[in-house]
């Protein structure tokens, strides 16, 4: 057993942190205010190699592994969870399915641009009537004269209006349940495809979330991703990896809560002393530090399993569940430690709280994670 990061992982982590502090931090407030992250930021992240981290060199990746990628997601999210989720969605659930299940032609067309940050990817699974029950997909795809015709709506899709390519699920064999679902690689300029209004959200305001509309959207026959009817299996696989990225994102938020709270507690004086001298505050900080470290450990373990080609679904669900609930608790305590100032938007902790809540919902709610874990236990 070895709990040390490799030299390479440490250096990548430090570079990601330097990037987050120098090129993200100064703009966070403005992005949140404008509810958008400029496209150049993604181009820059692509140029730096952020998106290529977990992919092998044969497809233009850096071959640094999923663990290194998780470290990078944490560092970015520690500074901006909005950028963190855009990053995680682009890599883990947008681009990864194309890498895992795509044909040679699909990979050649999309992977390079996605890894270099020239094209952003989105993953369209959730529908108004199919959230936790993603197998209840109502979007349909039928083959007409050698072309796929898609009809339906996807909601709450991260990167929707920025994406150049979307991986979306649709029913190709009605009546066959989850085995009747297939995935498609949809270029944003496909006829009949459009992006709806961006949502107004509690948190992660700078991240892009919108609806995808398929109205007789026509795609060539080879737009099918992998095999017909494999869509359900594919998205379960994609979500397993995605959960590690949401866990990493959550660890980043929890760490940011701890950083801000510790600094504040050491400088805020009440009753003639720094509030960090009060045991009640110390215990909160101790719990935050402990839970953040535990969440990080589980996240990295799940990533390590994945990198070593071992089963990781259960650990990914545990990491996602524990880390997301950790960051919500940490954010609540961070606001508490900041007192009234914590409730004001001049301090970052109110944003951490708003951002944190999504972690318990996206890519499978806490309830669904518990179901996944229980199923793994043989229930």
């Amino acid at each position, binding site marked *: 057993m070895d709990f040390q990061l490799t*030299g*390479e992982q*440490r*250096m*990548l982590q*430090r*570079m*990601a942190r*330097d*990037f987050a502090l*120098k*090129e993200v931090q100064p703009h966070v407030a403005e992005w949140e205010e404008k509810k958008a992250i400029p496209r150049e930021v993604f181009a820059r992240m692509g*140029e*730096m*190699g*952020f998106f*290529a*981290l977990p992919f092998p060199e044969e497809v233009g990746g*850096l*071959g*640094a592994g999923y663990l290194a990628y998780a470290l*990078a997601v944490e560092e970015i999210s520690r500074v901006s969870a909005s950028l963190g989720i855009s990053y995680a969605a682009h890599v883990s659930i947008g681009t990864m399915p194309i890498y895992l299940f795509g044909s040679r032609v699909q990979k050649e067309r999309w992977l390079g641009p996605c890894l270099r940050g020239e094209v952003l990817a989105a993953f369209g699974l959730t529908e108004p009537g199919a959230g936790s029950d993603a197998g209840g997909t109502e979007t349909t795809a039928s083959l007409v004269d050698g072309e796929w015709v898609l009809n339906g709506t996807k909601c709450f899709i991260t990167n929707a209006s920025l994406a150049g390519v979307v991986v979306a699920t649709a029913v190709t064999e009605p009546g066959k349940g989850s085995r009747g679902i297939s995935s498609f690689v949809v270029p944003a300029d496909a006829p009949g495809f459009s992006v709806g209004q961006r949502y107004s959200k509690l948190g992660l305001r700078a991240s892009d979330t919108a609806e995808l509309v398929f109205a007789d959207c026509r795609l060539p026959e080879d737009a099918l991703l992998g095999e017909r009817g494999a869509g359900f299996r594919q998205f379960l696989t994609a979500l397993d990896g995605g959960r590690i990225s949401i866990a990493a994102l959550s660890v980043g938020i929890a760490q940011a809560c701890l950083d801000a709270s510790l600094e504040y507690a050491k400088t805020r004086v009440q009753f003639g002393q720094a509030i960090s001298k009060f045991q009640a505050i110390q215990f909160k900080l101790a719990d935050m530090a402990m839970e953040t470290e535990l969440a990080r450990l589980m996240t990295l373990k799940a990533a390590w399993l994945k990198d070593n080609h071992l089963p990781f679904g259960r650990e990914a669900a545990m990491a996602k569940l524990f880390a997301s609930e950790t960051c919500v608790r940490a954010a609540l305590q961070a606001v508490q430690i900041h007192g009234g100032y914590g409730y004001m938007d001049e301090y970052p902790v109110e944003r951490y709280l708003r951002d944190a809540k999504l972690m318990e919902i996206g890519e499978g709610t806490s309830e669904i994670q518990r179901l996944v874990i229980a199923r793994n236990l043989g229930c």
Partner: protein
Amino acid sequence: MRIVVSIKQVPETTEVKIDPAKNSVDTEGLTRIINPYDTYALEEAVRIKEASGATVAVISVGPEKVDESLREALAMGADEGFHLSDPAFEGSDPLATAYILARGIEKLGPYDLVICGRQAMDGASGQVGPSLAEELGLPCVTFVRKIEELKEGYIRVQRMTDDGYEVVEGPLPMVITVVKEINEPRLASLKGLMKAKRVTIPVWNASDLGLDPARYGPAGSPTSVARLSPPPPRTGGEMIEGTPEEQVRILVRKLRDAKVL
């Protein structure tokens, strides 16, 4: 054109602990980074490379871990790395360090320009650059804040002074040391680091360099650190109370009394 950048690995942190037994900084457990001043040297070299196609070599004296900093320099755009390392180098003072560096630079082949930082963040003597020039028998310009012109065999630079700058010109090869005003260093990219992994960085020890044992390590160091102590903790200072108007009045009076105003 070939540019050599001399980089030192230093601990990252301002809260360093002092090891009284060794009269040196206790670097155990600290993250090691490229001396921040050297990132300006490196950035300048990489900019020259991008503008006119030079090759950039980085060189460093230090223990095994220095390999990481050399690779980080490659990730910032350097082309070659050279690592001078030998347990016997420990305890070298700036003069001995410069001696080792000079023999290393001679071994790596022809070059046109050597760029150093103005000083190291930890040792901070600012002596290695000029001593290196002396060892190499080259001219040296310190505190360069801008390279005005650089061409085959010729360089013209702005040298920062207390109240302005001097324009200095001279022949190449030359050693210059640079100040942070010269540029804004880029971040090393993840991509660059993963590429740098594949570069072979030769490690040369004392015998590879054919060094004179009397010129490095404690024996070869004419100076030694007699004592190292942390700066005294900041004393409280004085808080001025009252309304802003009163505070200003009191402050102005105090500054007058102290003959600052």
